[in-house]
């Protein structure tokens, strides 16, 4: 880690400093207000009737009894909304395939069909129990194997939405459950000579898992004159505003979307969750409505894609990786959500962060009759990392090489072209790998043990592209007293944007810790921002914030030059204000602004936009010279114990590294890395949504296991690698997902090391480990 040098005058720089997290005390005492804690008008409480069938035509919905229950204000069915809104009722980021309420057909157990508005939740729930729906069952598609047979279809026709222009060629496609396919063809895997070539292959599986941020989704919507106001737990306020405006056919300025800090999200609170339904109910009934998902309902709102990868990796006689193949299948459930993007973004890195000349990858997004899968920390990449990091490990072992050293030889380096055709910059895989292997003492010998507990070590590397193209905006309001207000639509969900964005402003304007406050996202006041997701905010919004701060700096310099009668080039902003060398004078911001405007409490504003572009990948080859704005690089090393009696895996030590370009706040970066690692341990060892006939069977927190304090390794360290990005704000990039990419394969590779078995299905539950050992004849 680099320590930042003091600035001239002994001033502490803001960028690189370990500022305390914004609202730290409020979060600890619980006085910070989350969405559900904020005041709203008196509301009808809403309960939702959900489908009991995985796939069925809706023949009739009888709401008579429900509507007659005292205290019920209205019962609204999908048919009612369809009559009002037509096909606008169908929303979704990639495909317009999700109805706020099902109107003709249900596609998963738990899909909303009708909503009850009542004076209190108990009444609303009691009324839901009185709704009777008549179904005609259709053939269900429970898994991707059935889906790919193409006998029964979850949707009759593909309906790309208007959000992503590059999907429009799929419009109107029929008789398929594959809503998107990405192909990578680089070199020619079939032309690779087989002489002396070693090939390893496997069928890898990552199950669907649930996000489970502890804060439950909550949306309140109401009508104010001729406008719709929404207060909601979303990480995509700008998207929600557009989606709701489209749904209700309103101009954007008649929809206001507000949020607050979120109690975690990890990808679960984005795009279309409770908002379209809340908006449709509030608008159609011209009343205020409040929807709060129970934990059980939250399990139905979105999941992480279960994914199968059939893959191989080959090395020639000299130990060079000559070919990689991967056939990836993402189970996206009943709605595409952003699955098509996940499919492409993950497919393109499925060969791993290695120099591989020949690669064949097919990555498909497949509809089934299950709850919809969407973005989850890592955006589909952990599922392909599970494959390539298991394969490369096995390949090294086959060749008799050290798995870390083998990777080190083949890892992409600065300036190398990755298999999908984009040149690498600021992605220090080797630095990350070195940091974690050094930390756990990779090269020092250790005893595997012969008794009940066996020790093993494992390593893995992760690679992910940032979401591109995207748009960010920032507005800074500098107040006459020298404090500043920052307006961005980035949502702080625990990643720390409310802390680091002020650090960027403070760095440029030489302000103190605590003097810059971020306004909670509010589409009436905070400017458009694509999304707070995919670890994109530090770089993208950070760049907009930096540019806005620089414009503000220029304004201050101009004001000072005018006032002091010197050239602007003679003035610079310092911690005391604007200083002129010639005039030997420093004017404080407050004096400068007071002098200029002639009043106290005045404001000066500056704004900036930051937009990234890409070269869309070729539809045939999947290649692009610039498929992404920047890369995330990470590595993980672990030392574990396997209990050969029970199959239990205990992670003793875990080191996680991420290349963040430059850490704006090292403490928050470290927390993102260790926090992701702990979540990743869950994915590796026990996290799994279990389905039976399309129905979630463990969708409560009594049944769904999450990492607790007990699952934290005795030694857990985060390593911040900084290979500055040439266009990052102060060299910085994000880090939210980096830590999670390689956790599961690192642990599986350690299990392989400890007991000699290669497990290809997650999670590595005790039963699965024991079974693999029994099969392999390991005692």
């Amino acid at each position, binding site marked *: 880690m680099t320590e930042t040098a003091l600035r001239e005058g002994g001033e502490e720089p803001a960028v690189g400093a370990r500022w305390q997290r914004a609202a730290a005390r409020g979060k600890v005492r619980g006085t910070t207000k989350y969405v559900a804690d904020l005041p709203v008008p008196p509301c009808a409480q809403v309960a939702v009737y959900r489908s009991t069938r995985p796939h069925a035509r809706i023949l009739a919905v009888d709401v008579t009894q429900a509507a007659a229950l005292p205290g019920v204000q209205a019962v609204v069915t999908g048919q009612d909304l369809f009559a009002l809104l037509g096909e606008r009722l169908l929303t979704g980021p990639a495909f317009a395939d999700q109805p706020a309420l099902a109107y003709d057909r249900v596609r998963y157990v738990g899909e909303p069909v009708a909503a009850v508005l009542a004076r209190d939740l108990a009444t609303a729930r009691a009324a839901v129990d009185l709704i009777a729906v008549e179904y005609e069952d259709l053939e269900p598609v429970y898994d991707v194997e059935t889906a790919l047979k193409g006998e029964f279809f979850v949707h009759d026709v593909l309906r790309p939405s208007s959000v992503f222009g590059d999907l429009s060629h799929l419009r109107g496609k029929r008789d398929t459950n594959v809503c998107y396919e990405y192909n990578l063809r680089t070199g020619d895997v079939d032309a690779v000579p087989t002489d002396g070539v070693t090939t390893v292959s496997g069928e890898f599986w990552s199950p669907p898992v649930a996000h489970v941020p*502890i804060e439950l989704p909550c949306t309140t919507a109401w009508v104010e004159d001729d406008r719709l106001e929404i207060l909601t737990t979303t990480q995509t306020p700008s998207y929600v505003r557009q989606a709701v405006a489209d749904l209700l056919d309103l101009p954007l300025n008649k929809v206001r979307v507000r949020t607050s800090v979120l109690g975690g999200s990890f990808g679960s609170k984005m795009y279309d969750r409770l908002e379209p339904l809340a908006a449709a109910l509030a608008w159609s009934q011209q009343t205020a409505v409040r929807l709060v998902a129970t934990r059980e309902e939250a399990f139905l709102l979105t999941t992480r894609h279960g994914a199968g990868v059939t893959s191989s990796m080959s090395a020639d006689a000299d130990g060079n990786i000559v070919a990689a193949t991967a056939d990836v299948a993402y189970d996206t459930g009943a709605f595409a959500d952003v699955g098509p993007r996940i499919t492409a973004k993950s497919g393109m890195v499925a060969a791993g962060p290695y120099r591989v000349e020949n690669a064949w990858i097919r990555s498909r997004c497949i509809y089934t009759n299950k709850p919809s899968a969407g973005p989850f920390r890592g955006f589909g990449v952990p599922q392909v990392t599970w494959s390539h990091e298991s394969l490369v490990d096995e390949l090294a072992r086959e060749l008799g090489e050290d798995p870390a050293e083998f990777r080190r030889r083949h890892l992409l380096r600065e300036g190398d072209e990755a298999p999908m055709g984009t040149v690498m910059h600021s992605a220090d895989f080797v630095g990350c790998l070195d940091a974690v292997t050094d930390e756990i003492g990779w090269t020092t010998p250790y005893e595997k043990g012969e008794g009940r507990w066996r020790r093993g070590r494992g390593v893995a590397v992760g690679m992910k592209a940032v979401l591109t193209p995207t748009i960010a905006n920032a507005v800074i309001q500098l107040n006459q007293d020298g404090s500043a207000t920052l307006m961005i639509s980035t949502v702080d969900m625990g990643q720390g944007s409310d802390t680091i964005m002020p650090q960027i402003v403070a760095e440029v304007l030489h302000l103190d810790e605590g003097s810059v406050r971020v306004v909670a996202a509010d589409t009436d006041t905070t400017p458009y921002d694509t999304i707070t997701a995919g670890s994109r905010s530090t770089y993208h919004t950070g760049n907009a914030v930096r540019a806005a701060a620089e414009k503000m700096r220029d304004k201050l310099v101009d004001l000072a030059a005018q006032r002091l009668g010197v050239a602007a080039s003679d003035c610079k902003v310092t911690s005391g204000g604007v200083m002129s060398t010639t005039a030997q004078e420093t004017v404080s911001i407050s004096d400068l602004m007071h002098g200029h405007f002639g009043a106290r409490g005045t404001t000066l504003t500056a704004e900036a936009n930051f937009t990234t572009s890409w070269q869309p990948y070729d539809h045939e080859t999947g290649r692009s010279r610039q498929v992404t704005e920047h890369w995330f690089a990470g590595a993980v090393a672990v030392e574990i114990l396997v209990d050969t009696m029970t199959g239990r895996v205990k992670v003793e030590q875990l080191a996680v590294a991420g290349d963040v370009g430059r850490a704006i706040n090292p403490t928050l970066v470290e927390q993102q890395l260790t926090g992701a690692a702990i979540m990743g341990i869950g994915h590796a060892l026990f996290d799994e949504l279990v389905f039976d006939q399309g129905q979630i069977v463990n969708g*409560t927190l009594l049944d769904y296991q999450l990492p*607790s304090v007990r699952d*934290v390794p005795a030694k857990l360290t985060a390593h911040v690698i900084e290979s500055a990005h040439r266009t990052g704000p102060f060299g910085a990039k994000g880090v939210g997902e980096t830590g999670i990419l390689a956790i599961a394969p690192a642990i599986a590779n350690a299990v392989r090391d400890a007991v000699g078995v290669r497990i290809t299905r997650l999670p590595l539950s005790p039963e699965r480990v024991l079974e693999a050992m029994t099969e392999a004849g390991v005692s």
Partner: protein
Amino acid sequence: MRMLNLTVNGRVHDVPVDDNELLLDVLRTKVGCTSVREGCGVGACGACTVLVDGRSVSSCLALAVRHDGAEIVTADGLPGDDAVVEAFVECGAMQCGYCIPGFVLMTHELLAENPQPDAEQIAAHLEGNICRCGTYPEICAAVTSAAARGARL
């Protein structure tokens, strides 16, 4: 409906409640303690933790009427210079922050019973609380730091 008498953070409240109302909802909507939060509704996450007569209770499982006359402490009612709060703030023991008030109260309960807990005792006491952000290392450090300060309610 009946009247319930609760002393919350030292202030007496008389609130009308239904027989089936949860302590969680009464505290949030009728007393205004939004530091008490629902995360699971089944007693499995600890976000709704309150101290009732000094003992931790999952308010999502507790019927309000059972607690007539109880003395309740919630995290937002802790004194301004509370040693546990200070320790959590200084150790950076929060990410999204949603779960943290529950951990703070569990820490108070632990330190009241055992002023100098070791790592195993800390883990044993906190294992029922879930922090999805994975702030456990900082939380454990904060408990140790609070113990060193001699936290007292």
